[in-house]
């Protein structure tokens, strides 16, 4: 009873608690460095708020057991799942929900073995490495292969589930992958679904977002787009989206890398006339229009 009374009497400044933890910096950098993703950011803020409250409750002796913090990040490739997972590890560390705050990113290959008896040691090795941090399992649905009933993935799943349940204070697991396949994965593995508290959905980037990301990437590398190139790139983004294997920001980054390649070739071709600093930092429309995305002439702006 005395505990209840003291809890009533203590007034807590949540804002001060939040500032003290340094989580605001992480959230700030999340806003500044990641374009778009508004629903993700608001979800992360909700989770951060929950964690701060949980921590205050724990300090007052109100929370009995560690909260379940396992998450699932769903979305198309290149929407920032790994990046956000990294920030999440940082947030969890600053709030004291994981001890070390490192991120171990794995896929099916790292967890599942090739022979009988190979899987358990492999999975345990990864778990050992991830202890005290965040285990990020990319394309988690590949762990479960219903078409092969002797698939070793099931063994990895069972070990994972056990650790997720029994060592919640040691490890946070984040599963990531395409939304539809994850949904199917959770349906066939109810154990996972019930142990995952937070589902975060990553929307695709809009064309405007992608242009902002392009600017961010190029500024970081000391490049800039000429006006013509900017127009060409926005045209490129629109076209690329309709083609197969579109991976949002990743496709964009690759496109920019190839544009830099073409720029270098172009500069060499023009080397006899001498080049200026401006030439070195500017990507021209031609560098982008040479992409195979603009297959026929008609698609060019």
């Amino acid at each position, binding site marked *: 009873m005395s505990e209840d009374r003291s809890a009533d009497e203590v007034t807590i400044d949540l804002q001060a608690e939040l500032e003290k933890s340094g989580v605001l910096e992480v959230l700030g950098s999340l806003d500044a460095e990641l374009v778009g993703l508004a629903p993700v950011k608001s979800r992360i803020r909700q989770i951060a708020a929950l964690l701060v409250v949980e921590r205050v409750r724990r300090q007052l002796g109100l929370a009995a057991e560690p909260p379940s913090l396992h998450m699932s990040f769903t979305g198309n490739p290149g929407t920032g799942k790994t990046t956000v997972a990294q920030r999440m590890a940082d947030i969890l560390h600053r709030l004291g929900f994981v*001890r*070390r705050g490192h991120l171990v990113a794995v896929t099916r290959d790292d967890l599942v073995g090739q022979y009988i008896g190979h899987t358990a040691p492999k999975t345990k090795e990864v*778990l*050992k490495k991830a*202890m*005290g*941090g965040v285990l990020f399992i990319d394309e988690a649905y590949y762990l479960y292969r219903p078409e092969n009933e002797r698939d070793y993935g099931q063994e990895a799943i069972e070990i994972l589930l056990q650790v997720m349940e029994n*060592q919640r204070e*040691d490890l946070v697991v984040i599963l990531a992958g395409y939304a539809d396949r994850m949904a199917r994965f959770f349906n066939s593995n109810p154990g996972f679904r019930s142990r995952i508290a937070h589902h975060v959905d990553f929307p695709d980037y809009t064309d405007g977002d992608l242009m902002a990301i392009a600017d961010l990437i190029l500024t970081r590398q000391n490049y800039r787009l000429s006006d013509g190139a900017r127009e060409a790139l926005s045209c490129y983004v629109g076209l690329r989206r309709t083609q197969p294997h579109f991976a949002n920001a990743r496709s964009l980054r690759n496109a920019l890398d190839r544009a830099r390649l073409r720029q270098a070739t172009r500069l060499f071709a023009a080397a006899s006339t001498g080049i200026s600093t401006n030439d070195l930092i500017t990507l021209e429309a031609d560098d982008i229009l040479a992409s195979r995305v603009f297959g026929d002439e008609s698609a060019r702006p």
Partner: protein
Amino acid sequence: MRITQGCFSFLPDLTDDQIKAQVQYCLDNGWAVGLEYTDDPHPRNTYWEMWGPPMFDLRDAVGVMTELKAVRDAHGGSYIRLSGFDNSHGCESVKISFIVNRPAKEPGFRLDRTEGPGRTIGYSIVAYSTQDMPADE
């Protein structure tokens, strides 16, 4: 006879929490933590069996504690020691090593005397725990 080898051996056995703190210290210093076990505690026995490869890429002591639990389950009746190897240039040797598990009954050593020429006597010690039986029997 209680075997005293390695660090902390004149203290009461470390509790799991104390072991965990030592392991965390090793990992924070970047040392590889290894687990070894043997039935022969002879002080000159350098060939303890390794329990898996040394753990050099962990960040948190919980990973080592899981392995410690596993080796205790498998070889609870043996001596188990935990060591931290510092691979930094100029050191490249074990910086810490201590016993984390001992058999319930420690029979100690027998002293063997061998008569040599001219009334000289050679001495050797043999662990009773290795008498008559090979390991694992």
